[in-house]
């Protein structure tokens, strides 16, 4: 019935309510309902049972949504070569989307396990988010052993947005999904239990810059609408194909929409927020963002560029090349002098976004399949790595300075070994999943004529291997007592001074920590709770298994991508 005309059909006299196939939207509806229920739980359930209730509800909802996604993927209703448009053509259900959504739900489930961990340092979330950091009120909350359980509904809403983002078939729906996923994340970033000023600073920065990028995105939508007269992806594609492309309005629109999406994936030069936010946010939320958000944002970006702008690939490919090269090079180079584990992982995430961009520029089924596989693989390793970050602690909370990780292997060999495994995976060493993933994206880029991209990619891989190996050296081959060489000390002070400044007042002990840089507080490795153990085990198993027998999942991603997105 309603095909191309939704946006411009105000003239049609009898209003027809859109025919919505709720069955196909069920995974999203389940998550949405659970989110609403969680708000009610927050309002009415007594405090003692609230948290367990929330954890159960979120895990159940995400698990159920995952199951429903699998059912949809297997259902005969889904045509073999395409997909179905739902809700007046605003939401697409096709194989790449289902793959992305399944990965999003799976990774969200694992992230939720980490978020729910309370055995490690009383949890990661603030006792009283509204209390002024360092105030009496905050102390009371900590003494009472509280933790904000609003985290769970916020995560559920974010997951809802992330599910919708790559499925959105018109630009307005996509924008709404973007905001639905971003708003809860802004809040979540500010909820850290320790170093709260740093956390709140990160939240504000993320919000400001996110709003800034949303504005670009919105401008882009306006220009595209001006050009094509529609916000439907397929309508845009048709309009561009009819005109033969090349009009300034269209090109500006593509550029501005690209800015909004590139911000979300953290590509250079829109990456500045990433290290600050990843460092400030509670680590489980960092894990959630670094894995799930990346999957979702890349999913949306792939859809827009493959469906709406697919015909103009010659116009935008040079731009993506420039951004991809900048992203890989700058991310890798800056990471070399990082001394903070969380920031280092943030830069590593920047570089990996660059690697996936090389496959996006391929605009082929092969590139899409490789991206899907890469996203899934990278997500698991990332969550595992951040889970380990939560366990290395000193009196201030997590000990994230690299020199505090010296000799970790001697104290916790198993933990150090898992972390080394994740790092080797990030570096793309054979027999880890990272190698297969990197191989797949570079292969796709090569097949599409992106040889310079691959050359730059391999070179920056070498640079990243250096700093991954440096962490391994620090953990395994330096004693806890011998001084390790600190790179770029001058710049390190310049950058960390600002972070330390924020950290100064953040001590949960309510007394300002004097001269944090001077005395090295006792670093200990906390025994992981059952949930953290599960997260690390899942991450390690995925990294290893997908490196040794990647074929089943690789086949799955390739088949999902075979017929591209539905139009």
């Amino acid at each position, binding site marked *: 019935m309603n095909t191309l005309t939704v946006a411009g059909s105000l003239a049609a006299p009898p209003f027809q309510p859109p025919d919505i196939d709720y069955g196909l939207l069920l995974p999203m509806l389940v998550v949405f309902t659970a989110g609403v229920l969680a708000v009610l739980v927050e309002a009415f359930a007594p405090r003692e049972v609230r948290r367990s209730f929330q954890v159960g509800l979120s895990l159940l909802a995400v698990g159920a949504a995952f199951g429903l996604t699998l059912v949809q993927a297997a259902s005969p209703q889904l045509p073999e070569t395409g997909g179905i448009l739902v809700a007046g053509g605003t939401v697409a259900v096709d194989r790449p989307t289902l793959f992305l959504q399944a990965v999003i739900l799976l990774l969200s489930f694992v992230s939720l396990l980490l978020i729910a961990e309370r055995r490690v340092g009383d949890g990661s979330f603030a006792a009283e988010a509204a209390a002024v950091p360092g105030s009496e009120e905050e102390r009371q909350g900590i003494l009472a052993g509280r933790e904000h359980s609003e985290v769970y509904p916020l995560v559920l809403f974010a997951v809802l947005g992330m599910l919708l983002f790559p499925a959105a078939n018109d630009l307005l729906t996509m924008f709404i999904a973007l905001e639905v996923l971003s708003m809860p994340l802004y809040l979540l970033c500010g909820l850290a239990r320790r170093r709260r000023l740093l956390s709140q600073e990160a939240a504000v920065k993320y919000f400001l810059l996110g709003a800034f990028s949303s504005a670009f995105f919105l401008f882009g939508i306006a220009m595209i609408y001006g050009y094509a007269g529609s916000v439907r992806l397929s309508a845009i594609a048709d309009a561009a194909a009819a005109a033969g492309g090349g009009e300034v309005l269209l090109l500006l629109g593509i*550029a501005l929409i690209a800015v909004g999406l590139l911000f979300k994936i953290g590509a250079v030069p829109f990456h*500045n927020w990433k290290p600050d936010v990843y460092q400030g946010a509670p680590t489980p939320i960092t894990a959630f963002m670094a894995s799930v958000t990346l999957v979702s944002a890349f999913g949306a970006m792939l859809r827009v560029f493959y469906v709406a702008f697919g015909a103009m690939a010659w116009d935008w490919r040079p731009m993506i090349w420039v951004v991809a090269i900048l992203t890989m090079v700058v991310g890798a180079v800056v990471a070399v002098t990082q001394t903070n584990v969380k920031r280092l992982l943030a830069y590593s995430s920047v570089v990996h976004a660059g690697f996936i961009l090389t496959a996006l520029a391929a605009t082929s089924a092969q590139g899409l399949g490789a991206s899907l596989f890469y996203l899934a693989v990278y997500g698991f390793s990332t969550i595992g790595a951040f889970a380990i970050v939560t366990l290395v602690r000193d009196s201030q909370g997590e000990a994230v300075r690299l020199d505090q990780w010296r000799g970790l292997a001697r104290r916790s060999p198993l933990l150090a070994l898992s972390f080394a495994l994740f790092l080797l995976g990030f570096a793309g060493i054979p027999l880890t999943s990272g190698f297969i993933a990197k191989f797949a994206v570079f292969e796709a880029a090569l097949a599409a004529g992106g040889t310079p991209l691959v050359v730059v990619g391999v070179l920056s891989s070498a640079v990243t291997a250096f700093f991954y190996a440096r962490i391994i050296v620090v953990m395994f081959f330096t004693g806890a007592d011998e001084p390790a060489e600190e790179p770029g000390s001058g710049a390190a002070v310049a950058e960390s001074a600002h972070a330390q400044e924020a950290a100064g007042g953040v001590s949960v002990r309510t007394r300002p920590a004097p001269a944090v840089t001077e005395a090295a507080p006792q670093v200990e490795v906390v025994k992981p709770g059952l949930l953290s153990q599960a997260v690390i085990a899942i991450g390690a198993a995925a990294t290893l298994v997908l490196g040794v027998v990647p074929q089943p999942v690789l086949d799955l991603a390739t088949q999902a991508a075979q017929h591209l997105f539905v139009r």
Partner: protein
Amino acid sequence: MTGILAADSAHEAVERASTAAADGGIHSLAWLLIAFPLLGAAILLLAGRRADRWGHWLGAAASLASFAVAVAAFTQLLGYAPEERSRIVPVYQWISTGSFTVDVNLLLDPLSISFALLITGVGSLIHIYSVGYMAHDEGRRRFFGYLNLFVAAMLTLVLADNFALLFVGWEGVGLASYLLIGFWQHKPSAAVAAKKAFVVNRVGDFGLLIAIMIMWSVFGTVAFGPVFEHIGEADQFTVTVIGLLLLLGACGKSAQLPLQSWLLDAMEGPTPVSALIHAATMVTAGVYLIVRAGLIFEASPVAQTTVAVVGAATLLAGAIIGCAKDDIKKALAGSTMSQIGYMVLAAGLGPIGYAAAIAHLLTHGFFKAGLFLGAGSVMHGMNDEVNMRRYGGLRKHMPVTFATFGIGYLAIIGLPPLSGYFTKEGIIESAWLRGDAFGFTLAGIMLLTAGLTAFYMSRIMFLTFFGPKRWAEGAHPHESPGSMTIPMVILAVGSVALGGLLVLVFHFAEFIAPVTGAEVHHFNPLSPTGLVALGLMVAGVAVAWVMYGRAPAEKLATAPRGSVFTRAARADLYGDALNESLLMRPGQRLAHASVAVDDHGVDGIVNGLAGAVRGLSGRLRLQQSGFARSYALSMFFGAALVVGAMLVVQL
């Protein structure tokens, strides 16, 4: 008298037994041969101290069980017609990638079963001997673990039906040899000797490995059957290269010139190891390889002649070294080199020498193992003294050792009708029967060496068991326990009878002829070479008696300065010095030069690059100021960049 002549032999060489699949019986269980000692090694090496009390008996039992299987397999093989005595026993598929597959098959034929019997038979005796010899050693369990590992690897080597699996066994015995030479690694000399054996063997192993690679690239297979079948289709140069590389491998393992230097040092290992590995079995692997790959050498006269020359040179060099050494084990080691030289020379003669080579290999396995065990027994009774100038007159104190050592001695010098007489005579006659100048030269060298053998073996005998006592203080020589003497007695019986049995009764040449193409010629007790050899033997013994049997104690107790030859022989004919100046020092210089290039050239570039990246990184990170306003500004410029990149394409 001379049996089948050359015209017939060419015909016979072609008509080799075709290999058939094993048809059940004990042959389908042939893998047990290897499995028993392998399992034994695994248990002994993994069980830790728990196995200390019974580990040595388990090791001996594993070897005996393997021997039982070998005897049963041998009996079944005898039940077939001679041309059907080559059986393949599939075990499993080892490597399968695309068109390249390597099956793990065992090959049971007269050649391999002869080796299997020798390895497990002599091996079991030495296991039993070691129970007594190593009784006071803390590492006895580990020792038996290594011994079992050796037996398993050696059986893999001889039972393999392709070069790849043979190479696995080849490396396995190398490993076991390394571990056992360095068994007392707390002694620096033992550790160095083990390393030396390992390094020198690597050279040879490399030759074998390259030969296997060439075979694969030329023939597309490394299995014995197909390679030998198609050897005639390859060009002459390739075959010669393969042959010479195989010879290099054989030289490393069998301590032939120019890779002989490790064997004398290898005597640092416990004496049972010297007996089993460095006298009876492992060092003969080279002879096995040459005889097994006989068709390759027959296809390349150059390679075959080289084999004979190498054998002749080593046989003389070993004997000369044996004449000058005062260390009883090193003197015996020189003798081993020399005797293997006989075998390699025989193998280099072609089909006419194969049977003689293998027969001498088997009898040598017995009498040389017996001699080493006897030497071990003497050392055991003399507080581990190895210098023969500190022995003397031991025959009264160690009567069993004296008797068994004496029998081994008579066997090796070739006294009729003991074992060595029949088999060594077979080799000399084979060379003589070639009938050309080359054959006569070789026979002459061997006859000369036969005299030298009689001399140096008599020297050992007289210095140890006869003459006046020259013992160190505190020496109380005594006979060794039963676990040591019984194996010695059994080996002595073999030293007496095996040669005659093999040659006259069992007709060994006919037994292995179908698989090796060996020519059969009947033993001639009155051949001219035999008579000359006997004469030279008597002369050698007489000279030794004059020099060592009747000399006074004070003259024997200290080594004379000696002639140039003596000093050269004491220094292993300057083999080590040669290696050092030709290979080691240039190698070290090359290594130092490479390090310098690496430090200043390669590392300089790498470090410079790393420094540049680091500097750039320090600069770039300053841009990460922490201020949202500057981030927003950079986003703005980024957006301008993206827009620009989009529009610039249109220009």
